[in-house]
């Protein structure tokens, strides 16, 4: 994404919601946001890392979050980023995905087909784009692909079956199996998301992560 073409100008960024306002407007899941805020999955080492990045001359000072309160991935991950912002002094602004389709369009995933959230975009103090994270880690996506292959084999579906190509007759059982398989992994995926944000920042800022 080229900075020159982004719709997120400094002025637009300032129009985003403060986290407290996002929470105040939330129609659902306030308890979940609170729960994960109180259990942010960040280690002391993680906090030290993000503080170190923030102290770099071109380090992250601003974070944009694309979110919706109904989304499970959002209530699991956004509170972690709130904690990162609080620890580093970064300015966090939350934009509701469905009210900001032009911003969402800049961060589509799945070859431009998915409007997956959360999206976290890191900027320097002078609003230069650093990097961004979308939805869940690459490791989590890989696990998901692996789970789909395993379940396909169990249900006797052809090798190479993807979620999109599961036959309609097998889909209810397939979905049930998939949910049972990946739901227990959500806690681990939170930690992997933190690690991926660390990797993204250290790579973008050419500052090795020595964790």
């Amino acid at each position: 994404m080229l900075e020159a073409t982004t719709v997120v100008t400094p002025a637009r960024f300032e129009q985003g919601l403060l986290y407290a306002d996002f929470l105040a407007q939330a129609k659902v899941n306030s308890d979940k946001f609170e729960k994960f805020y109180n259990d942010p999955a960040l280690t002391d080492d993680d906090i030290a890392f993000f503080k170190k990045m923030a102290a770099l001359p071109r380090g992250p000072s601003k974070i944009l979050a694309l979110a919706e309160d109904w989304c499970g991935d959002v209530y699991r991950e956004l509170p972690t980023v709130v904690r990162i912002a609080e620890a580093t002094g970064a300015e966090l602004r939350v934009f509701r995905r469905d009210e900001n389709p032009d911003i969402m369009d800049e961060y589509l995933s799945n070859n431009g087909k998915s409007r997956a959230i959360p999206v976290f975009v890191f900027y320097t103090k002078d609003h230069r784009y650093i990097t961004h994270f979308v939805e869940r880690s690459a490791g989590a996506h890989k696990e998901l692909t692996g789970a789909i292959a395993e379940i396909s084999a169990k249900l006797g579906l052809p090798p190479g079956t993807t979620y999109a190509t599961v036959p309609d007759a097998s889909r209810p059982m397939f979905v049930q199996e998939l949910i049972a398989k990946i739901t227990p992994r959500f806690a681990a995926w939170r930690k992997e998301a933190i690690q991926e944000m660390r990797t993204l920042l250290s790579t973008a800022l050419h500052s090795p992560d020595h964790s």
Partner: protein
Amino acid sequence: MNQNPVKAVPIVYTIRGCDACVKLLRKWDAEGVAYDERRVELSQLLLDEARKYGSLVPIVVWPDGTVQQGFGDSLGCFI
């Protein structure tokens, strides 16, 4: 006495920002399928009700009690 009993229709728990939910409703609308839509993003009560049946919207509860989660080629949204 009611001589015209209401025909049971499926209940569908949706989020309007969820692509899989939108696709399901579009299909049902095209086919003329009647349904009782309950938008879980608008109410904690409805969200909690939906969670009794599953964790991936759209969640369809058929009149015979059968429950289906997700729809079509996209995964849907975890609630």
